[in-house]
């Protein structure tokens, strides 16, 4: 994962947005974190050819209008976008959500811990794993 590539956070909960931003700061993760509060906004962003492709998407599931799994299904249908990995970050441990997310090729499914210290450890592990991981060089 390249440090100059943005990471997208698709999340409608303001407290969770703040926690993720704080974890990024405290862990010195330098990838720009772009926040989208709705899946429609995030899709428009992904389809914008003028902007660099993100190296990773952190995706909440319970988002009004278009759900996280709908978003996954939709952007994975675009050939030029489907390589972008999404890690689900949610409060839902519902087996149906897990099954559906992996069906649409989520690259991980983390249940958000309520405690910030534990939440930060989850973000640290996601970052460590994707830093070891090779990604294709996108044609922006």
């Amino acid at each position: 994962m390249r440090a100059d590539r943005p990471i997208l956070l698709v999340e409608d909960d303001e407290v969770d947005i703040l926690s993720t931003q704080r974890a990024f700061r405290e862990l010195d993760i330098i990838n720009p974190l772009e926040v989208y509060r709705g899946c429609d906004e995030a899709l428009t962003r992904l389809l914008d050819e003028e902007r660099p492709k993100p190296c990773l998407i952190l995706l909440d599931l319970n988002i009004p209008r278009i759900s996280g799994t709908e978003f996954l299904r939709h952007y994975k249908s675009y050939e030029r976008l489907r390589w972008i990995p999404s890690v689900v970050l949610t409060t839902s441990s519902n087996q149906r959500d897990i099954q559906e997310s992996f069906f649409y090729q989520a690259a991980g499914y983390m249940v958000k811990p309520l405690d910030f210290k534990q939440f930060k450890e989850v973000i640290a592990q996601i970052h460590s794993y994707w830093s070891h991981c090779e990604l294709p060089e996108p044609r922006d």
Partner: protein
Amino acid sequence: MKDNQPVLLVEDDVVDAMTVSRSFRELSISNEVIHRINGVEALEYLKGTERQPCLILLDINMPKMNGIEFLEKVKRSEGHRRIPVVVLTTSNDQRDKLEAFNLGVAGYMLKPMDYSQFVTVVKDIDRYWTISELPS
């Protein structure tokens, strides 16, 4: 990993397969490693077993059916497409990376030559898939 299902290792190189098993032992990872030497045998395993793996570790360059061809088949299968696949390979080829991610891999790690670095990579994979939920 999160549950005690086996990990399916698809790898034609005997030394690399032994290195994976050794690092599992060293890291006290209790999941059994089921080793198959190419895509054909790995598919046969998936089709014939009730013990589905919680994770597939996949090499790319293999005879008979390579990693990309295996991925195409697994991801087309309703029953198997949910199983996360992590590529573990020496191939630094851009085309392999793009094809693998287009087919929905959940990670692509280059095998380090050095054993202690290899253990670090396996440790990272184990930790990540321990905190991640898995489809049951």
